[in-house]
C-alpha cells in the first residue's frame, strides 16, 4: 500500500490513493500506523471490529482515523492490518488486527497528537480515489 507525505509547515500531511473506497480506508489506516511505528515488529494477534460514521467522505475519513488513532493513544493498541468490510460515503466497517504495545519489542517512530479537519478531502478520480489529511504532530 502506498501513501505520500506532503509538506505542511508545522504538521504532517498524508495523501493516499486507491482504486476503491474500501482500499482507500485500508491505505489510510496503514499510512497512520506506518508513520507511528515500525510495523514489521507488530503482530496481528488480536482482532477488533469497529464501525465509524461521518457526514460525508472527508468527515468520515477524519472520524475513522481519529477512532483508530485513539486505539493507540488511549488504549496502547497497535494496528498491523485493516480489512474494510463495508465502505459507503457516510459509514465504514472495518476488521482491525494488531496487538498491545510492548516496549521491549515495538519501536515508536513519531507522536501523532490528532487527525485534523484542515484541508481534509476525499476526491474521486479516473483511477479511483485520492484522500488528503493533515496530522497534528
Amino acid at each position, binding site marked *: 500500500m502506498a501513501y505520500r*507525505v506532503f*509538506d*505542511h*509547515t*508545522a*504538521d*504532517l500531511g498524508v495523501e493516499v490513493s486507491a482504486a476503491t473506497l474500501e482500499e482507500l480506508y485500508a491505505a489510510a489506516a496503514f499510512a497512520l500506523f506506518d508513520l507511528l511505528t515500525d510495523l514489521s515488529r507488530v503482530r496481528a494477534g488480536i482482532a477488533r471490529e469497529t464501525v465509524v460514521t461521518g*457526514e460525508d467522505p*472527508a*468527515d468520515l475519513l*477524519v*472520524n475513522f482515523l*481519529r477512532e483508530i488513532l*485513539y486505539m493507540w*493513544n*488511549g488504549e*496502547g493498541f497497535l494496528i498491523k492490518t485493516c480489512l474494510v468490510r463495508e465502505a459507503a460515503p457516510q459509514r465504514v466497517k472495518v476488521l482491525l488486527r494488531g496487538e498491545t*504495545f510492548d516496549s521491549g519489542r515495538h519501536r*515508536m*517512530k*513519531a*507522536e501523532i*497528537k*490528532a*487527525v*485534523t*479537519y*484542515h*484541508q*481534509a478531502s476525499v476526491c474521486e478520480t479516473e483511477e479511483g480515489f485520492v484522500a488528503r489529511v*493533515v496530522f*497534528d*504532530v
Partner: protein
Amino acid sequence: MRVPGIIYTSEKLMRGMGEDEGPKQVAHVAHLPGIVTASLAMPDMHWGYGFPIGGVAAFDMEEGIVSPGGVGYDINCGCRLITTRLHAEDIRDRLQALVTALFQNIPSGVGSRGALRLSAKDERQVLTEGSAWAVRHGYGTEADLEMTEDNGVMAGADPQKVSDRALERGKDQLGTLGSGNHFLEIEAVEEIFDAAAAAAFGMEKGQICVMIHSGSRGLGYQVCDDYLARMVKHIDEIGIPLPDRQLACAKLSSARGKDYLAAMACAANYAWTNRQLLMHRTREVFEKALGMGPRELGMRLLYDVCHNIAKIETLPVAGSDVRLCVHRKGATRAFPPGHAALPPAYRKVGQPVLIPGDMGSGSYVLAGTQRAFTETFGSACHGAGRVMSRTRAMKSCRGRSIAREMAQRGIIVMASGRGTLQEEIPEAYKDLDEVVEVVHRAGLSTKVARLSTLGCIKG
C-alpha cells in the same frame, strides 16, 4: 472579512511568508462572527490548521464564538522559567552529569508515562484545582502559585464536560514532558537589556536558569478533538459557510460553547499541574546531582505563561473596558505594569513574557506593555515559529549528527525520539532575535534579558 487582518512582521521575516498559508488563515479568522477590532498575527506566525499559529483573536461575549481549533490541540501549552543562585561557572564541570540526570528522571518522548497514576478522584481534583493540587500534595510551594499566570488555575472547570477518553489519557501522563518541540533546558543569562526589570524579575548576568516547555498532554489533545467533532456536526448554526472545518466553533453564549470552555479549563489546569510537577522533579534532580540543598540552589519560579488558550478577559476597546474571549494560539499574554493580575513584585515593570527559542538558540524574557494591552488584547509572540516542515528538516539532516553539531557549539542535547533532533534543527525555525526585535520595536513587549542554552532534554 468583518475586521482587518494585522500581521506584525519585518522585511526579513516577510521574505518567507508567502510560502505558506498563514496570511490566508489570518483572513479566515477575520470572517468569524463577533470578532472584535482585528484578526492579529504575531511575527512568529506560521501555517496552522484553521487558525494560524501566532494568531490572536478576541470575540464579543454575546455575538462571538469560541473555537477549539483557535486554541489548539495542546491546550495551555506554555512555559515556565526557574531562576537559581548558581552561575555558569558553578556547574561547568557537572553539566553533562546534570543533563543526563534530568534526562533519566524526567519522563519524555512518545507515550511516556509519569511516576504518578491518578485515581479518578485525584484526577478530578487536578482538573478543577490546577497547580494548587500539586502544591497541596507537596510538589512545590505557595510562592510557585503566585508566580504562575492566573495562579495556575482557570475558573469554571467542570470535569463532567471532559470525556472518558480524555480522562483515561490523563491518568498517567502527569509530570511528563511529551515529544516534538517540548523541552527542558538549562540556560544562562547572557545579556540584560533592562536592568530595573531584570532586578524585579530576580535575574542577573551569568545566572543559571531552567526553562520548561510542555502542555496538557493527551488529555488536552482529546478535549480539543472531542469538541471539534461535536462542533463540526453543528457547523451550520454559525450562520456562515466556513472555508475549513478546522475553524468549527460555537457561540460563546451557547451550551456547546460553554461546555467547551468548561472542558478547556480542565485541560488548562492539567497543564499547569503538569508543569508544576516537572519543576518539582527538576528541583529534586538538581539537589541530588549537585549535592546541594534547596536553600543553596534557590530555585525560584520566575513565571509561568500559557500560549495556547482562550480566556475571558477585560480589555480596552475603543476607550471602554469590555469583557472578551481572547484566543491566543501560539501567543503569550503580555499584561502591562500596574495590572491587577500581576504578582506585586512585578507590578511596576509588567508581566514577564517568556519566549522560548528553537533548540539551542536560548530564550528571551520580555515585559508586557500598555501598548500590547490596547493594541493586541494584551498579547505578544510565543517563540521562534517554524519555517520548514518536519519532513524537509529531516531531509536536510541526512548524513549530519545534530547532537555533535550542538556539542561543537558547547550545548549538550539528549532526546528520546530518534528523529526529534533532526526535526527540531535551528534552520527549521525563524530567527528568534528577529522575531523578538519586531515585538520589541512594535512596543508589544520590551526586552529584559536574553538567555543562552547550555543543555537541553527533548522528547
